[in-house]
């Protein structure tokens, strides 16, 4: 999947060579899209629209008498809502750390996998392992690893002589934050690597040969040949992983429940709690739309910064 120039600049001669059978191309295209549009439209469009509508209401199930339309008041109140603001800080930090680690680890891993070496097939298979792990199970797994009493990490570090006694890793704010980010990265890395690897696999080998002739060093070859080809897949990774990181819930919920204190209270966890525990549907929907709009704006940001040159296409 990728964002390519061709989406708007339709394939040359595409429609032209097609014999018409009474239907215009546009009609035919929408006919082909109809099944997908119907399913998405029927099942999601209404819930999405409804949630936006709710976000314009003061609507807590516990206070049905106070329900009313308040325009954008829920959104405006966020500016001075300490719970939301602290959660936003945590979320931004979480997204930045997760994205940073994902991009660095993912790129390095994809570059390694693109080389030829003994055992490459094995590593290519191993990289898919975390993908197969449901977020809930991922959270449980890291819990047992970082456990303060019986955890594998404590045992390992103690045996290596790096710590004197077992540590409660998840109890300090920084520790809990980094561990949840780490667990999230581990879980989502495979998809990143696949996309990047797919991108690397399309680089024509002549380009490397040409670079070799020019006696370009490893670094030069990376910046001159590899990186330009990776920009596109990296863009997709950034968009998808930003979406994922903003919505990360399962792993965090199982691992820390949002604590200690506010340390891992990312907006997705706060959002679920607001809707289902506090039954504040109005405010909860506003949180959701903030996530949506922020994700959208960031996606647009990525596309426009990475594709400054020339025409920008989606």
């Amino acid at each position, binding site marked *: 999947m990728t964002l390519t120039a061709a989406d708007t600049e339709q394939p040359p001669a595409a429609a032209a060579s097609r014999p018409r059978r009474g239907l215009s191309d546009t009609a035919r295209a929408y006919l082909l899209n109809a099944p997908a549009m119907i399913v998405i439209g029927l099942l999601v*469009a*209404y819930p*999405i*629209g*409804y949630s*936006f*509508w709710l976000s314009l209401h003061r609507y*807590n*199930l*516990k*206070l*049905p008498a106070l329900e009313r339309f308040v325009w954008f008041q829920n959104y405006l109140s966020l500016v001075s809502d*300490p719970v939301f603001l602290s959660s936003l800080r945590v979320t931004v930090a979480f997204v930045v750390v997760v994205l940073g680690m994902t991009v660095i680890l993912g790129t390095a891993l994809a570059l390694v996998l693109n080389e030829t070496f003994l055992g490459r097939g094995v590593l290519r298979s191993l990289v898919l392992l975390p993908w197969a792990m449901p977020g809930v199970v991922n959270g449980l797994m890291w*819990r047992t690893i970082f*456990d*303060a*009493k019986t955890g594998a990490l404590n045992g390992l570090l103690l045996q290596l002589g790096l710590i004197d*006694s077992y540590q*409660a890793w*998840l*109890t*300090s*704010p920084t520790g809990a934050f980094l561990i949840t980010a780490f667990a999230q990265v581990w879980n989502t890395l495979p998809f990143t690597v696949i996309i990047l690897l797919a991108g690397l696999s399309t680089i024509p080998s002549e380009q490397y040969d040409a670079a070799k002739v020019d006696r370009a060093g490893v670094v030069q070859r990376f910046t001159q040949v590899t990186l330009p080809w990776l920009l596109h897949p990296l863009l997709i990774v950034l968009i998808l992983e930003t979406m994922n990181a903003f919505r990360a819930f399962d792993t965090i919920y199982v691992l*820390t*429940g*949002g*604590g*200690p*204190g*506010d340390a891992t*209270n990312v907006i997705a966890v706060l959002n*679920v*709690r607001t809707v*289902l*525990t*506090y*039954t504040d*549907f109005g405010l909860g929907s506003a949180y959701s739309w903030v996530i949506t709009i922020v994700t*959208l704006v960031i996606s*647009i940001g990525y*596309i*426009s910064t990475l*594709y400054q040159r020339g025409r*920008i*296409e*989606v």
Partner: protein
Amino acid sequence: MTPETSFSRRRVLQLGALTASLPALSSVLAACGGGGDSSGAVKFSGWDYESALVQANVDRFVQLNPGVPVEYTPITSSQYVQKTVAEFTGGGGPDALYVYDDSLAGWVAAEYLQPLDGLPGVDEVYAGIYPSNAEAMTVDGKRYGLPYYTDTQCLIYNEAILAKAGISAPPKTLDELEQQSQRIKDAGILEFPIGLTAQLQDTWQAWVWGLVYASGGDMFDEAGNPVMDGTDPTAREVLAWLQRAATVSRVIDPAVLQLLPVPLDDAMKAERYAFTIGARYALRDYNDPARSQTAGNLKIAYIPSLDGSATGTVSTTRMYALSKDTEVQDKAFQLLTYLGGFTDGQPYTAKYWFQKKGLGFPFKALEQDPEVQAGIATFADPEIYSGLADAARPRTVVKQPWYSEYENEQQKTVQQILNNQTSPDDAVRSLSAAVASLKQKYS
């Protein structure tokens, strides 16, 4: 790119506004489709504590009442409240269900439940239970529940570990609790003698309330105004003690921040802690030789207080309630009566739970029941057991619509006290401020 996308976003927003008119349509559809459950079974749901035993008891009810089929659905405890809210909001709620005292007022306000006043047998039940339970199940003067079980918080200590450290009697004050723990620690028996559950949860952190109530204090007055920052210093002093015990004398395990109730139970049964604060019924499990390495050593005591003079604790009530929109009200109430009321003059199910799992009984008369008395004696000192029941108070603040938000704030604050991220003064101040802003939000 930018112009196109912002355009498309506007489009979507317009679409959203358009589709918002659909609720009417879908509620019409829902009305057509939801013409009642054709089977006529009573849909009964509860959190999944011992769901096999619940099913067995429900099966017995169905056998006795062949005309009342029951569809029992256990829901995972950690998501029970959330899932039930989703079901009622989506129009698919059960007919009869478990309710936490924590959720009751909110669910009444959300119009999920109907009052039971005037239904046959309800007055008798309310006359037979402890006043604290009756109070917990009443909202705005109306009765909404029949009791499932009640319990109070208590200090649980491992007598064998205390004896090893040369301690013969459990602590009466919090300072004694700290000193005894220090002795156990110094003797090299346990590094951290006190275990608690302090991971964030969507249920209440009972022991925090237990500690404050034990010293005769409260976080709130009767009207739901915060006093923890003003007239009542108990909460601040309890927090100060917690912080000292966790960070100075280090007798509270730092790992409690990631401890949930079930792992704590395991740790108590494996002698990894000498003290905890928990519900009385936990002792039944802790002292069951089939399930605990240290059965017989775990004892009940009053929760230590700040000055040793007060005895108090917090009680909780779990109840059965009737959905407002049930279409099988009579049958559902029949089930409710079997579960939370009297069968042939006896609170059958309450006694069943006490005998099977040691769950505290809400019916005063059971105190005199010889079988129950014998049952208590197997896992706890009967005098302290009933003394706790007499001393226990329910939380009044659960009736406030913002209670669940407050509870979450309090849990986070306790975590910050335990890992030294805030001071007791700041903690009570921020809790009080949180209440003020919640009140404003809900006004």
